[in-house]
């Protein structure tokens, strides 16, 4: 047995190897610069975007923009109702999508039998993530606004937006749950834990940072999304912040869209200032979420 091994090993001739180490290293360096280039391009584009917004908008930034309702006069105009509308839409749809999306992900990953049906659902959810947002707006218009008689209200906007971000939440939560090592589940089952005890005590805590990342991305999308809300809600000027789920509402991207469409040049500057506010709020929201994620990922590590 061992002599066979040796004879076959002796057939591997040293002359056949051409390591070309420096050439391989050069290829590696070229790729490094390609990757650096794409990063740099992204940063430059982002910088140009910021510049095009901050340039015209900076001088129009004021507390009034945040505290005042919209007005015909650009000096007095603000977007307080839109800010509140956006906050409610993002929080409401985030919570709704979290509950529905995480529930779906847990069911599909941990409970449902793996097989054709599961694959079918998975494919459909992935496809839903690619459906244009205006389609969700039309769905919301038909189902929530008309069929369920909600009217063009905050709750209709929240539910529509929740549907829109649901596929992303489901997909990212499933990935996070799937990334929990099987050995952790085995350890739990091996002690006589039920499925629910295993999911609640081990799978979810370990998957939570990943789930949170998905929610953060989904909520960031929700705050910037305009088209579906144009259909189900705040197309008109709203002077008051929403005071309940059935009040009319306005959101920041719609306010910006509204202002950019006006003939006066001042409103364009105002729109630029509003974009800065939108980005600051987005940044604040994301840093809170990232902080939360760090907190949880320190606790759950395997």
């Amino acid at each position, binding site marked *: 047995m061992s002599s066979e091994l040796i004879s076959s090993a002796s057939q591997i001739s040293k002359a056949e190897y051409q390591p070309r180490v420096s050439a391989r290293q050069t290829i590696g360096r070229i790729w490094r610069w390609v990757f650096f280039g794409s990063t740099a391009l992204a940063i430059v584009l982002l910088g140009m975007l910021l510049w095009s917004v901050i340039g015209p908008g900076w001088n129009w930034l004021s507390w009034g923009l945040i505290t005042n309702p919209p007005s015909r006069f650009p000096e007095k105009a603000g977007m307080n109702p839109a800010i509140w509308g956006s906050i409610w839409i993002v929080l409401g749809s985030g919570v709704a999508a979290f509950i529905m999306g995480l529930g779906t992900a847990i069911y599909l990953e941990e409970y449902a*039998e*793996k097989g054709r049906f599961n694959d079918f659902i998975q494919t459909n959810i992935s496809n839903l993530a690619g459906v244009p947002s205006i389609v969700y707006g039309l769905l919301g218009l038909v189902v929530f606004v008309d069929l369920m008689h909600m009217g063009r209200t905050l709750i209709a906007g929240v539910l529509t937006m929740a549907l829109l971000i649901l596929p992303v939440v489901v997909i990212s939560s499933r990935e996070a749950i799937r990334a929990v*090592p099987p*050995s*952790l*589940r*085995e*350890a*739990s*089952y*091996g*002690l*006589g*834990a*039920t499925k629910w*005890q295993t999911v609640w*005590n*081990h799978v979810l*805590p*370990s998957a939570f940072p990943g789930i949170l990342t998905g929610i953060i991305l989904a909520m960031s999308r929700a705050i910037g999304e305009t088209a579906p809300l144009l259909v189900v809600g705040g197309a008109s000027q709203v002077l008051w912040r929403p005071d309940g789920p059935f009040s009319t509402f306005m959101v920041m991207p719609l306010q910006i869209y509204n202002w950019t469409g006006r003939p006066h040049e001042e409103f364009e500057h105002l729109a630029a200032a509003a974009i800065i506010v939108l980005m600051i709020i987005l940044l604040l929201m994301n840093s809170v979420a990232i902080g939360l994620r760090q907190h949880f990922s320190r*606790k*759950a*590590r*395997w």
Partner: protein
Amino acid sequence: MQLESSQEAVARIPGISAAAFQSVEKELDTSPSLIELRNLNIHYGSFHAVNDVNLSIKQNSITAFIGPSGCGKSTVLRCINRMNDLIPSARVDGEILYHGQDVNARNVDPVEVRRRIGMVFQRPNPFPKSIYENVAWGARINGYKGNYDELVEASLVRAALWDEVKDKLKDSGLSLSGGQQQRLCIARALATNPDVILLDEPASALDPISTLKIEELLRELESDYTIVIVTHNMQQAARVSDRTVFFSLNENRQGILVESGPTQKMFTNPEDPRTEGYISGRFG
């Protein structure tokens, strides 16, 4: 009684002296059997992984499963507490009787089976929680109403880990070394008060000193628990077990049980030439 042949066999396995065989005086064949496998067949999808295994496992003894890689010994082990339920494609036919009750019967809850038949896995897998919580959790989910501090201490003492961790019970279980983690996993299994402990190559990821500690520990646990251990290490099987079961592959690459018997007999005077070939290192 068969001292000469014993010494002969021992000479074939490096690192084992005749003294390594323990419990020679134990009259194992008269002790009651706790687990009976009857006509056990296991399929993974269309692959027939384990073919017709019949085996009885004695109470308060250590049974070692040995055999070449892929012979189904871990698969058989994982059937005993229905861990194979977690693999969707696995199908188990035949009877696995525990106290005379088929664990695969319709009215038997696998959760109940696993509480009584605990398991320690190949790679140490403590929970990403504190050492204390690692031990207490299994008892908590099983509704333990006693004093948790005492339970944790008693379990860690039994697992020969207490002295090393008593001052850092709040530290993460993952901060321990591999050998300590594995003993933590044993303590965790003990804390649920099982009847049987299944160990799936518990020392294969550990250094020799940790391995020795685990083996000593198993010897101490034997009086209170029925232990089944899968091992690739024949010296380990010889050192630690009362009975040895040898699995191998048939011509269709299916796992079969070749021979089982008291460890001393298996290592010194096996009946089947395949057993002899394996333990003397001629194949596998």
